[in-house]
């Protein structure tokens, strides 16, 4: 993050000279990188994330996946500031338990999404710096993906990429899954094998061009039979 202060407006490096005393305000936020992706199919949902945890120029960990299992039918992917990710998932777990005890049933994916929206908005003036994507099965057994912004605005999608490489991955998903901007192409429904292969290819590309993405890829596939996890290695440089 400090690299942005070294280069001036015209792209050349700024000359180093003493400008006077500077107050460095403590920022409670930090950016820990990572990319999350979710795809919804006819009867499955896939949530995938890389496992690199970085800060500035350093890598803290190569094995820190960003998908968290919430219920048997829902997985959440959180990227952004790792401290807020951990606390947020703990709060969601606690709320899920409270719901289960008072209502005697598990929360559905849609209900978890609505609840997360209010949790995030409750911190409107000191937000959780987390980009969330929930992937799971809805009440009818169809795949559902809900994507959030850090203050709680959300909506249901078919596919979404979030995190540091999201701007690179989202157009690729628009083209391959949404068939956007393609003329005369047959819109075939996405099968589970094709979706998993697409996710792997997409992350391999992301690791090439985004420094905060890499090391390994963790894929969680949610079907009515449960949640299956797969790990695929990525570039480690």
């Amino acid at each position, binding site marked *: 993050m400090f690299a942005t202060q070294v280069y001036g407006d015209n792209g050349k490096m700024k000359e180093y000279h003493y400008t006077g005393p500077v107050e460095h305000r403590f920022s*409670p936020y930090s950016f820990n990188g990572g990319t999350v992706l979710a795809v919804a199919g006819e009867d499955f949902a896939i949530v995938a994330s890389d496992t690199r945890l970085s800060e500035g120029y350093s890598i803290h960990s190569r094995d820190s996946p960003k998908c968290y299992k919430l219920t048997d039918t829902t997985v959440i992917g959180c990227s952004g500031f790792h401290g807020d990710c951990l606390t947020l998932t703990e709060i969601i777990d606690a709320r899920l338990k409270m719901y289960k005890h008072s209502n005697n049933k598990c929360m559905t994916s849609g209900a978890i999404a609505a609840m997360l929206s209010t949790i995030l908005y409750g911190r409107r003036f000191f937000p959780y710096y987390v980009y969330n994507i929930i992937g799971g099965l809805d009440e009818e057994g169809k795949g559902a993906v809900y994507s959030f912004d850090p203050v709680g605005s959300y909506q249901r999608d078919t596919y979404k990429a979030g995190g540091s490489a999201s701007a690179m991955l989202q157009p690729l998903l628009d083209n391959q899954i949404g068939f956007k901007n393609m003329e005369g192409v047959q819109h075939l429904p996405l099968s589970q094998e094709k979706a998993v292969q697409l996710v792997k290819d997409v992350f391999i590309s992301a690791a090439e061009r985004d420094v905060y993405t890499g090391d390994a890829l963790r894929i969680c596939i949610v079907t009515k039979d449960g949640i299956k996890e797969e790990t695929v290695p990525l570039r480690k440089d």
Partner: protein
Amino acid sequence: MALQDVSGFQDTPMSHMWNSPASLSGPMGDTTPLLDMADERILGWGRFKSSERDGGVPLRFFIPPPQSSVPFRCDNRHTSLSSLSTSSSPPTRRPFPLSHGTTTLAFVFQGGVIAAADTRASCSGLVACPSAQKILPIHSHLLVTTSGSGADCMLWERILAREIRLYQLRHGRRLSITGSAKLLSHMLHPFKGTDVCVAATLCGWDVEEVRVEEFKGKRVDRMGSGRDDSISPAKRPVEETVMSTSDACSQDDLTDSACERTRHAVTDVDLTRSPVRDRCGPKLFYVCSDGTRLQGELFSVGSGSPYAYGVLDGEVRWSLNEEEAISLAREAVYRATHRDAYSGNCVDLFHITAQGYCRRDREDLREEYHRERERVLKRGKEESEEDKK
């Protein structure tokens, strides 16, 4: 939670509604028994069960303490929303941008209210979502078009829908559009000066059910609580009966005897002039988080609104028919998306009549660009042929 309130299981928030922002003080100084200070990690922000008991705004917010040179001050009892805007140090800077930028418009005509909006949600240069929904129905006769920050609009619309529903359950009649606008405006007022950014237009139809046979020639008093926020008792017009469609009370419930009414059948409404100032009929309000609340006949909000106004100001009239109004709204959004970078993708169109709202299919404007290009080419060809002659 709503049922709990109605059945008296908890304190009704209505009993101490809208008091000072100081009641929103940070959870550290709160004395609600549900808070377990020792288990601050999970419940320390006190938002869970106690969110319905809050006497102020219907959603409890965590207000960060103003940053001072002495860290970890525990005396946050006096932290309030006003300290956010007047504190000497700026609040914690957000490391991410929020979504903004849109074109929404709404206008009233003889066939009801038309509301139209684009569907692009942008986030400082990136299109966060190409298919956002900016027109949200609250109930069958009220829509809200939202503009400003996406999360703020979505959440405040949910809160408004909940409060309107609670009002309906408690008072037995539906809150009027005017009342809903005032409710939203008052709910947003404590956040004036913070960076909550909501610019909504409430489009709706105030429905008055007239039981013609029962009240022939009889003067009837106002039903229910008889209180309409917008008009004080002394100024109420004499010529209208007011019974909302959800009113199940018998006609003997004459609680308000201040004014007397005569029957006014909806069919007698004069269609040649705009009845927006009357009690029933189409209504359009603009409510903004900086406190503005305006009633009007044409509003356009958002970064693309100047372009939409250009198209609408020339053409909108009371006497438009339905197809003309729909195509005019569509054209205005199309021109705005063409010129404004932050608007685009598709156009959503809703039409509200006395029977409720109906929604046109979402239309991708990409096709419209192709058609426009062909029209321009054709025109160019025709003109060159005329020149040759």
